């Protein structure tokens, strides 16, 4: 498949949207494509005193990055530990399996109760959301490290730290990385949802909710498009690293 064949459906989609918008002829239901594009030509312009598109995007990216890093710091070492030592996993598996399917949004009331309205509550929701995919992928990756790889290190009398450092972590690297990729996707969804909560004063989710209240649907859609574009760019970064750093995984037979 050629790269441009990926563009066929999006282009058709945009054309259909514009035709529909023209037929509906009501900007409060569906604005024209141009009115949304116009917002992207002036990304630094303040939107009805709710801040600019760029400014709110940066705030969201900052929030999600911080939450994601906190989740990594918790979930990766914990996952390595649980994957390496069966006894820890037996012990914690029940709790993980129960907590894992709870969507991040379901944590909203509790996070508000614990942290109040604001930054800490948003971060909590992000951390909760992306910890589990990272944790589960890390555990799985560590458990699937080939026994012969570990035994090879043991033959050379590697100590436990060397086994971790030189075998387990690099061998589980691709699985951990794909956990990070999934985790980041969930974190990004969580931040936008969290920003829609009452009491927030910044971020893409905030911009979308507030401009919706003012009937500015073209800004709502522009915010959604920005969420999509940023998500795709982030995912491309994860894919790029996966392709280059972990090339061995797909080539090793």
């Amino acid at each position, binding site marked *: 498949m050629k790269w441009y064949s990926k563009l066929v459906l999006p282009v058709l989609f945009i054309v259909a949207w514009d035709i529909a918008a023209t037929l509906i002829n009501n900007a409060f239901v569906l604005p024209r494509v141009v009115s949304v594009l116009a917002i992207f030509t002036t990304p630094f312009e303040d939107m009805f005193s709710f801040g600019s598109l760029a400014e709110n995007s940066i705030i969201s990216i900052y929030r999600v990055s911080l939450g994601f890093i906190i989740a990594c710091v918790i979930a990766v070492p914990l996952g390595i530990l649980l994957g390496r030592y069966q006894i820890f996993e037996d012990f914690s598996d029940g709790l993980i399996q129960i907590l894992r399917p709870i969507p991040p949004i379901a944590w909203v009331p509790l996070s508000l109760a614990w942290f109040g309205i604001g930054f800490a509550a948003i971060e909590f929701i992000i951390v909760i959301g992306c910890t589990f995919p990272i944790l589960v992928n890390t555990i799985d990756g560590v458990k699937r490290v080939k026994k012969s790889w570990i035994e*090879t290190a043991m*033959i050379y*009398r*590697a100590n436990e730290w060397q086994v971790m450092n030189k075998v387990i972590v690099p061998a589980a690297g691709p699985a951990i990385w794909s956990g990070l990729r999934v985790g980041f996707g969930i974190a990004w969804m969580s931040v936008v949802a969290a920003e829609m909560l009452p009491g927030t004063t910044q971020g893409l989710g905030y911009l979308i909710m507030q401009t919706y209240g003012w009937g500015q649907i073209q800004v709502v859609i522009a915010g959604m498009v920005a969420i999509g574009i940023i998500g795709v760019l982030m995912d491309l970064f994860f894919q790029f690293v996966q392709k280059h750093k972990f090339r061995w995984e797909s080539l090793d037979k």
Partner: protein
Amino acid sequence: MTDCDKIWVRVEHATKKFSTRKGEIVALEDVNLEIHEGQFVCLLGPSGCGKTTLHRMIGGLDIPTSGTIMIDGKVVDGPSPKMTMVFQEYSLYPWRTVAENVGLGLEMNDIPAKERLTEVMRELKLVGLDNFADSYPYELSGGMRQRAAVARALVTDPAIMLMDEPFGALDAQTRNKMQRELLSIWQETMKTILFVTHSVDEAVYLADKIVILTPRPGTVHEIYEIDLPRPRDRTSVEFAHIRKSLLHTIEELEAGNENI
């Protein structure tokens, strides 16, 4: 050929039992074995006879249920520094280059990078891979990968090399070539080698001494000394004669055990 007095490996009354869902399985029973310095010993036997289990116990990756295994007079309770192992396949780290793989044993012993490289290049030259130091394992053929595995085993200069069907996954032609190369490395480095195989042909070509194991429970059926001069000619009458007699023994052992 080189039959000095020093005994590097001594197995005394080694028994290994595994408990499975179907009950206890006796993998090895009362195995006795001595390997002298510089010997090339092949462990030969039908599949399921516990060759690999015995091999792993000598390597310190498994412990016998009863009996003792000694390397250089010391009871084995973990991988010995005097010994190294070469596995059948998949033991090179795919995220490391060939040179980084070969240097693994030195790295684990905290040898500085510069010294490591000198040693690594020497071993790579010995196995004919000096032009592939910066390649990754997946860029090499099966035969080259096993050469790299042999280089990795040699780099820590162990007295004993334990090899578990190292050429089992290779095509016949590559396999013969690797056997020739291994013999020349063995003659050059004076290592003591314990080589697991299920191929009679391979054992007769390589070994000074062939240890034939019986099917489960595995025990030493016969120790067969081969004093054909090297390089051995696979097409010679003597070679064919030994091979025939060993094949006959193995077939009899297998016939006596229908549940393989």
